[in-house]
């Protein structure tokens, strides 16, 4: 009878407290009332689920406090509310761990997170239960050890199985990306080194072999002046001089084919202007970049323009022709166009060679040449 009365009083008290606890909520729901900080409201934009969860959490807290108060008022003794706290704490812990697991990306990762949320909650429950038995009943052995070990092992085993593929694929992908990065970098270095080397060769041809041949023809010329009366020797000297001249001309053509001297000396814009003037097509040149360009990029842009102008002059019967050099993000865009008869073959040997040259720099080349409406050739060269 006493017990029943006590229970009834307790229920009443809980109901009363709940009633009082709800009071601020109803207040906060009335329009114009200031929301209380300790209890979020639906009006603050919470979803029903979030609202219910926060309500449960706060109710749990209130219940815990209330039980402690009842224990204090009912003569203390054995601290039984601790077990109720454990139960309420489990609920809150499960709620937190489940919501954490739910925030993980969908699929295997979320499944593994759910497993670890359960394992974690179970471990905490075990440890706290042991703590309570130790504090309240004086148990000395750490009995949850085997259970914890079992939980950790099964959690790890599940993670390993579930994420095994992902780990391997991610590793493979990382390795592949590193390889692509390295290949891109080394190819660029190789192309740059080749361009620098070609310029050095061009310079060496001009200032080395060719200059020495010039000095040779000068010496021969001086010798020739001294043997005016010996026609045989003079003839030999003149022959030698002629040969030297041929050699000089060949070296000059060779060097020009490697890198046009104006490109090496003054850069792309000056070289393109000279090129356009040489073709005499009245080509309009627009330059919209002041970026420093690597020798490989300059050479590629130059040879694209040279090939395009040659084609225009040979085949296009164009009235107008234009060149545009534009800096765009980390690209140099080269556009060469004419209003001629079009019909250029993009797979022809000249254009195919250009494409190979541009693609070796990770660039792209496109040709738009429909019959009767001119030809536009556009090369995009990365220069960042």
């Amino acid at each position, binding site marked *: 009878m006493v017990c029943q009365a006590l229970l009834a009083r307790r229920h009443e008290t809980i109901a009363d407290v709940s009633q009082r606890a709800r009071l601020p909520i109803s207040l906060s729901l009335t329009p114009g009332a200031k929301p209380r900080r300790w209890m979020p409201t639906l009006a603050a934009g919470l979803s029903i689920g979030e609202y219910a969860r926060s309500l449960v959490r706060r109710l749990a807290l209130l219940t815990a406090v209330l039980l402690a108060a009842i224990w204090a008022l009912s003569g203390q003794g054995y601290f039984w509310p601790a077990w109720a706290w454990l139960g309420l704490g489990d609920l809150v812990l499960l709620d937190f761990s489940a919501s954490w697991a739910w925030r993980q990306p969908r699929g295997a990762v979320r499944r593994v997170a759910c497993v670890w949320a359960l394992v974690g909650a179970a471990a905490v429950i075990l440890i706290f239960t042991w703590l309570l038995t130790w504090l309240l009943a004086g148990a000395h052995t750490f009995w949850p050890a085997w259970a914890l070990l079992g939980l950790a092992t099964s959690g790890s085993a599940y993670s390993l199985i579930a994420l095994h593929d992902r780990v391997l694929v991610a590793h493979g992908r990382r390795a592949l990306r590193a390889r692509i990065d390295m290949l891109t970098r080394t190819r660029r270095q190789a192309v740059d080194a080749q361009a620098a080397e070609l310029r050095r060769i061009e310079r060496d041809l001009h200032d080395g072999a060719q200059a020495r041949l010039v000095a040779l023809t000068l010496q021969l010329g001086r010798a020739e002046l001294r043997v005016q009366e010996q026609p045989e020797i003079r003839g030999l000297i003149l022959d030698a001089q002629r040969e030297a*001249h041929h050699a000089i001309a060949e070296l*000059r053509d060779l060097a020009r084919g490697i890198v046009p001297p104006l490109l090496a000396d*003054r850069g792309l814009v000056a070289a393109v202007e000279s090129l356009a003037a040489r073709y005499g097509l009245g080509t309009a040149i627009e330059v919209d970049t002041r970026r420093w360009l690597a020798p490989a990029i300059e050479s590629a842009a130059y040879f694209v323009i040279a090939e395009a102008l040659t084609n*225009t002059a040979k085949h296009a019967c164009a009235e107008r022709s234009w060149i545009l050099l534009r800096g765009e993000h980390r690209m140099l865009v080269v556009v060469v166009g004419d209003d001629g008869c079009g019909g250029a073959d993009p797979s022809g040997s000249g254009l195919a060679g250009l494409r190979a040259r541009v693609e070796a720099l990770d660039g792209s080349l496109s040709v738009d040449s429909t019959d009767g409406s001119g030809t536009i050739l556009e090369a995009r060269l990365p220069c960042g």
Partner: protein
Amino acid sequence: MRVVIAEDLALLREGLVALLRENQIEVVAQVEDGPGLLRAIAGHKPDLAIVDVRLPPTFSDEGLLAAIEARRRQPALAVLVLSQYVETAYASELVGKDTAGIGYLLKERVGDVRAFLDALHTVAAGGTVLDRQVVAELLAPRDGTTGALSGLTAREREVLALMAEGRSNTAIAESLIVTPGAVEKHITSIFAKLELSACHDDHRRVLAVLAYLRVSS
């Protein structure tokens, strides 16, 4: 005649010095780079500077820029620029507004010693000498256009090229193995086709050619 030579290759520089001295031309200074040239012309006040286009340290167009700067500082200085290759852009920059005392020749022309010495004297005397390749490039028939130059006959082009090199009528006649009268006739015809007023002074003829070439390029 007092000459300064700016050339970085010792072999060629010494060859030039020897050639000039053998022909009673005084070489007052030999330098290897652009700043050296400017110092030499300030110190020695020469009549003529022979300058290689590519000089140290970058071996691009320092020689040309130094020659233009030297002319700016001493307008009376005659300049003969030597280059391993012909670039019409360089020729027109060098010629600028004042064509008096300017020469632009391929380096290998030094082998033809007599013509080279002639060119030196022409330039030093205030004349203009352009390499025949510059002229050829400017006169070359161009695809897709029908400029005034395309109206010239092949022989007239040859005569015009030789005129631009600063040759006299007699020299042109010898070179083409024709009579001086025939050369005169070609020149009159060229001037008519290019709509230039005819005159007989060699130097002014070259100026006229240059003026035309500058406009057309």
